[in-house]
């Protein structure tokens, strides 16, 4: 009996069909699209406007609107699109023409960038290229950004190079209904009987390096050296400058070549199971004589996995440019001169906090965050900024 049963099982095993391979099955790459919306309100005050020779209001309000779309075509190819509009209301810009509520009091900045990124087959390298355009009433800028990143097989070393070039045309007129073309560099209204500069282009090229290493399971470090070259019209043509004892202004004049070298280092580490310490230091040097030191501290704290609060503080100290002179203090023998307090000697402090809510499930919504910062400078300039960020995914 047992032998008949075994024989029956053997026969059944030969004629029974197992799982058939579906010959119509094909591998499909999962496409995904990520949408990021960024809105920010920036409000500034101060009393050292460079437009009026280092004195006068610096009140400024900007509404910043930005959209980023990242579309993964497949596992290797990604398309990047970014666009934005900044709506600017400036009390000091009004002083270019000394007309209250003139067209110069309000301006808009438009910009767009479209890029392509490709990953290598081993998924350890990324290459990308991203051209961009930016436009405001008094400039038009072309830009090109290229990057390469690589990680090792354990993903505990990561390297990268990022290069950018910009060509800025500082002529006004493209957004003017009467001209609709570049016409002229904008000088202060009382100084337009002279041609102060025979050039109108500014060129910028920079290269940044990125070296990151995971020190242990909870700590990583990054080094960010870079170098920036600028040439062309580096003065702002509507900035006034007054020599000592002068009643009539001249246009500020800065050297037409500038080299900048920033060196940054960042340390990120988990403190306990819920708090991250992000400590960043940067040293800066340029040939205008500016030396700057930045210390930035952010401490994201996870209240629950979805909710994080992010208090932060930043301290910055700058030795001013050798061409900076306060209002009516420079001798007429100076070849280069500016009263732009952004290039002066000062210390600044920024503090604030953010809150971030992230979805832990694969849903349409990924993240919402809100962030507030207050910044104050030792010369009296300050700003408040409130920013919101939304991140959503679609397929």
């Amino acid at each position, binding site marked *: 009996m047992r032998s008949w049963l075994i024989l029956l099982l053997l026969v059944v095993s030969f004629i029974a069909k197992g799982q058939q391979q579906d010959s119509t099955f094909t591998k499909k790459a999962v496409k995904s699209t990520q949408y990021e919306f960024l809105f920010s309100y920036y409000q500034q005050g101060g009393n050292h406007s460079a437009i009026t020779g280092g004195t006068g209001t610096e009140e400024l309000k900007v509404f910043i609107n930005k959209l980023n779309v990242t579309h993964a075509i497949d596992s290797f190819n990604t398309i990047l699109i970014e666009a934005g509009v900044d709506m600017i209301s400036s009390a000091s810009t009004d002083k270019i023409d000394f007309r209250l509520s003139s067209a110069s009091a309000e301006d808009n900045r438009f910009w767009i960038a479209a890029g392509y990124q490709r990953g290598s087959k081993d998924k350890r390298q990324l290459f990308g290229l991203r051209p961009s355009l930016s436009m405001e009433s008094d400039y038009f800028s072309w830009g090109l950004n290229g990057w390469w990143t690589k990680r090792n097989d354990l993903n505990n070393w990561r390297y990268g190079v990022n290069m950018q070039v910009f060509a800025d045309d500082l002529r006004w007129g493209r957004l003017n209904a009467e001209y609709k073309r570049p016409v002229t560099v904008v000088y202060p209204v009382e100084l337009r009987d002279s041609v102060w500069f025979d050039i109108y282009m500014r060129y910028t090229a920079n290269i940044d390096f990125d070296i990151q290493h995971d020190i242990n399971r909870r700590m990583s470090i990054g080094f960010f050296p870079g170098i920036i070259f600028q040439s062309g019209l580096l*003065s702002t043509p509507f900035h006034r400058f007054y020599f000592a004892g002068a009643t009539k202004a001249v246009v500020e004049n800065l050297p037409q070549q500038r080299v900048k070298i920033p060196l940054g280092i960042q340390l990120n580490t988990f403190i306990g199971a819920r708090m991250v310490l992000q400590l960043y230091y940067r040293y800066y040097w340029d040939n205008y004589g500016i030396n700057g030191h930045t210390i930035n501290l952010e401490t994201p704290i996870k209240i629950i996995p979805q909710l994080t609060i992010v208090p932060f503080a930043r301290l910055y100290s700058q030795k001013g440019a050798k061409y900076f002179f306060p209002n009516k203090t420079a001798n007429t023998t100076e070849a280069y001169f500016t009263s732009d307090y952004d290039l002066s000697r000062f210390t600044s402090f920024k503090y604030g906090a953010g809150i971030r809510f992230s979805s832990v499930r694969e849903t349409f919504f990924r993240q919402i965050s809100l962030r507030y910062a207050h910044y104050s400078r030792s010369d009296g300039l300050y700003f408040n900024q409130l920013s919101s960020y939304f991140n959503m995914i679609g397929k």
Partner: protein
Amino acid sequence: MHIRFNKSIYFSVITLVLGVFAMSCQTVKPYQRSYLNDSAMKMGLTKGAGIESYAQMIREGASGAGGKNGGGCGCN
């Protein structure tokens, strides 16, 4: 008030960094990356901080090293 960053501060920062490195180095295996893969451990600026960096770049003479590097705007 202007804060001076003198040689003792440079030396302290460099010593701190090297000390952290020397005492803490470990090889991290892929299955040990739960903390490192957290979004809060990502280097560089978050989107909101990036927008502030743009304003700072214009309002301060220094730029670069993780922030916007200049060009693409009407500012010097």
